[in-house]
């Protein structure tokens, strides 16, 4: 079964379908509904036997590169352009097909936002590559 990452972003991706203010500016009951939905997605995936892992990433970002021989690493911790991608977290799922991954990503995207309306958030779907080739060559 293929594995996919369903990535959520703090920013980046196609133009928002529906602009939404930062979550700390929502009504408290909308915040609750949104958080409850995130837990619900994990539980749903688990009960479907499709869950692998989920993690959230803190927004602070540092770019690092080799500084050259005998030099300290070169780092840049922003601010980065507002348009650059910034991953917020992911679910890793193990599903029957690409179509199923897309279906689940769309469900994640329907999460409730301000006023309980769906957020229509863009979800980045990426297949996880396998470490080893299959045992048969399919010939």
């Amino acid at each position, binding site marked *: 079964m293929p594995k996919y990452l369903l990535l959520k972003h703090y920013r980046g991706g196609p133009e928002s379908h529906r602009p939404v203010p930062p979550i*700390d500016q929502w009504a408290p009951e909308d915040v609750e509904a949104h958080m409850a939905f995130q837990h619900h997605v994990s539980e749903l995936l688990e009960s479907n036997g499709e869950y692998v892992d989920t993690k959230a990433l*803190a927004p602070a970002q540092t770019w690092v590169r080799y500084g050259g021989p005998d030099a300290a690493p070169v780092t840049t911790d922003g601010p980065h352009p507002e348009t650059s991608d910034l991953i917020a977290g992911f679910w890793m799922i193990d599903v029957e097909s690409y179509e199923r991954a897309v279906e689940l990503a769309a469900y994640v995207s329907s999460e409730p936002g301000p006023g309980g309306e769906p957020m229509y958030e863009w979800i980045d779907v990426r297949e996880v590559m396998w470490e080893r080739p299959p045992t048969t060559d399919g010939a």
Partner: protein
Amino acid sequence: MSDEPTQRLDEGALRTLVPRVLAGLVRRGEEFDAAEDALQEALLEALRVWPEHPPRDPRAWLTTVATRRLVDARRSEAARYRREEEEYAEPRVGGAGPEEGDDTLFLLFCCCHPDLAPTSQVALTLRAVGGLTTREIADAFYVPEATMAQRISRAKRTLQGRRLDQPGDLAVVLRVLYLVYTAGHAGRVDLAGEAIRLARQLTLATAEPEARGLLALMLLSHARLPARFAADGRLVTLDRQDRGLWDAREIAEGVRVLQSALALQRPGHYQIEAAIAALHDDAASAEETDWPQILAWYDDLVALTDDPVHQDPAAVLGRAVAVGHVVGPTAGLLETDRLREVLGDRHRWHAARGHLHELGGDLPAAAAAYAEAARRATNVAERDHLIRQAARARA
């Protein structure tokens, strides 16, 4: 009295034997690394054999079997060198063995050797003193078992050839146990409970008041754990906790241990933090918290370091919150200002300021500070809590 030959294998009792047997082996001159491996094999053997044939003296049984494993290992090594060593065939039986507490302290000093990195000290302590399996330790820290196995064997290799007969650094041991405690309780293995168990053993081995201070601090904060999370997993802060859920027995034990430490008149930061925790535990409601006393303890905590540059920023921040409650929110905020350089990038600094702004009735400023704190949090439960605080202050 039952004559049943089969008794249920008590894993807890088995685990308390681990440090005693291991300390005995290392004391008589075995390499720590080899002795630990041999004991792990003996424990596996015990799990297999004891249910059918319970030993009369479990400790002697483990020592004998571990010794045999050591001899086997040495024989196969010796074969390579065409040399035989027979003198280890039977365990040496000493006179009156050292006290259990001495063994624990001795092993803690080995595992918390200053040459080891903190992550290795923690892993080795849990395995060699706590008697946890590599799998359990890996689960507790959410790393693959192979990673943890490697970490442990590298740590043991580092100890090879080091003199292990010197008294170690108790401050390092205390820090390692506190690291185990704060690493949490979310996994399958209750690390907080394990840290308390080890700290309790440590206080049997040393009269050092800071060891008791650490145990008291753990007990007094662990007592609040049942109220710290709601049924849906959300964080509940101290001021909103259902105090009826606090563990009164743990609080009573913590206070008793703390009093015995303070009586020795050698205060240290664990004792002082425990005293502050005790004052929170003592309040029947958040409103009844004795903030003036808490502030006095924070004054002592900050004063432990004379040099203002090297003062513990967390202590200064805690004191600023206490100032906010005793003198007033504006004074408290002023106290946090001098931490902007050191802590301005940490979520705790912004969260404390949010609390102080809220205390002073400035809800927009509180909401902004909570939102800043949420952006810097590195823990999902704390992040979610801070977002809720921000939304609540704005509503």
